[in-house]
């Protein structure tokens, strides 16, 4: 049987969901027997490839770049997993939503600065007005809440999906887990 193609993507999250994936420890090596990690912050691929079987997405959609990215990921992925509370609900990144992006930028780049105050604008993606969950922009196939979902949960979900089965997520994790 051909090896499955798996990817992990990081939008506006803290990387904790990725770290929880690494917390599967030695199982990282067994996972490599059934799937290739074709795109991830952990490997050197620079472009998100075509025909990915399962993609785990961490984080909310918060900037223009996140938006562009999630649309491309959706087009090239069969099963898209919204991994963790930030992806599922916007969670922590969403806490900026009551403030205007202007106010958020000003705090960091004008008020708390000693030299050259001003909002960076050359070659850096602009923030969207609000940080929003992934499913508001693209269709999500599997939701895995948790902040982060435990390593065991992630391993279970990934193994089931790679085996072509539907994971019973609810009995393994919950919001804020």
């Amino acid at each position: 049987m051909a090896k499955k193609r798996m990817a992990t993507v990081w939008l506006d999250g803290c990387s904790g969901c990725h770290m929880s994936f690494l917390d599967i420890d030695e199982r990282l090596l067994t996972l490599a027997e059934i799937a290739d990690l074709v795109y991830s912050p952990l490997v050197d691929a620079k472009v998100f490839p075509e025909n990915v079987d399962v993609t785990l997405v961490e984080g909310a959609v918060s900037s223009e770049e996140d938006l562009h990215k999630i649309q491309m990921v959706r087009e090239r992925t069969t099963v898209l997993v919204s991994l963790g509370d930030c992806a599922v609900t916007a969670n922590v990144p969403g806490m900026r939503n009551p403030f205007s992006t202007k106010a958020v930028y000003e705090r960091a780049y004008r008020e708390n600065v000693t030299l050259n105050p001003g909002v960076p604008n050359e070659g850096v993606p602009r923030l969207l007005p609000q940080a929003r969950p992934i499913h508001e922009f693209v269709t999500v196939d599997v939701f895995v809440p948790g902040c982060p979902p435990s390593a065991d949960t992630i391993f279970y979900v990934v193994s089931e999906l790679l085996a072509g089965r539907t994971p019973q997520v609810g009995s393994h994790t919950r919001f804020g887990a």
Partner: protein
Amino acid sequence: MANNRTIVIDPVTRIEGHSKITLHLDDKGEVVDARFHVTQFRGFEKLCEGRPFSEMPSLMARICGICPVSHLIASAKACDALLAVRIPPAADKLRRIFNMAQIVQSHALSVFHLSSPDLVLGMDADPAKSNLWGVFEKDPQLARDGIRLRQFGQQIIERLGGKRIHPAWVVPGGVSEPLSQADRDAILYSIPEALQIAVRTISWFKQVTGSFREEIAAFGNFPSLFLGTVKEDGSIAFYDGKLRIGDATATLVADGLSPARYFDYLGEKVESWSYLKSAYYKPKGYPDGMYRVGPLARLNVADRCGTERADQELAEFKELQRAAILSSFHYHQARLIELLYCIERMEQLLTDPEILSKHVRAVAEPNAQEGVGASEAPRGTLFHHYKIDDHGLVRWANLIIATGQNNLAMNRSVLQVARHFVRGDKLEPGMLNRVEAVIRTYDPCLSCSTHAAGQMALRVQLVAPSGEIVDEVARP
């Protein structure tokens, strides 16, 4: 006529967070300028506004899933300052262990999961293989050791805090639960194996460095200031102490600085092309006040570690150069020495009977309206600074994160490496991987300051003034 040639590396991979690098070339194909752009911004200094201060440790930990414990600790220390309490001695020691467990897991991640592909497979290795799984094929023991060491640190965090990532155990005034004897014993039981792995890894590393002489010479090898925390006796400190700044000649520029007064001597500058601000040492101005933080800086400014094996390794390390050790390539070895120290030191703390004390939390209402908390995170000194109102709600926050303090040096390093290795007339992927590899030595944590995931191929085009593409390399 000016020839506009730019190389863009986007995203920089095998680092924690999202960034890209642009290299500007002159008409002879020589690199004249380089920029390390950090491309995501998260806004924690604002989004905490209006929330109760007691939420800060758990909320601020969500800045970073790699070093949540560092943020928990710096944040809880800022809250301790708001309460104006002295935390119980057992809580102080437990927090120290917690912090060191995280340094172990984070340093293991940096060395094994992110940088070992460059070290084991070489800087010119096939990008499709340049990852932990590629290392596993070539040297299974090393890959397993990396996974095991990271797991060792994470398991200690889990035993103390209840979960591996984002435990809520560190609270204003101390920690929420004492350590049980069973957990203490289980941690102690795991220490000899971790020590063995650390020692084995250091000797492996010292062997491989021989093949990287050219990289050592060009990877951020320049004078700068170095900043780190030390204890009163001048030994290395991670949880608490005074700041010390040394220069390239190993002369102390400042000593005994109070972290709570960071704003007197540290400034931050905005660059219009990056979401990461650049910190500098104010008395020397910008950009002469460039300083480095993290493992290399800490070992440069500390007189010693204070545990047996780490001190042996440190003595050998300090032989590398007569004064301060300048090349950022040596961050890797410094990281391994710190990792060894943390394992040894955790063992000492865990065998202290006081560690099982049930008195682990001081309770108080806020007694101050402003508080600063600082600690040494894996990547360098971390500051959290909050102001609250009469209701205990946060009104203002400022965070100075390790990676921002290395920003000036990272930019200089990228330029140095690019000038040395990148030839505009004949591009090869290995050249560009070296530009990324120097960034990896700093182990930047961009989720701390910002971050995201990339979307462009690494495609480099050389364009002649006429607009004609002279050369092109692409990497999948």
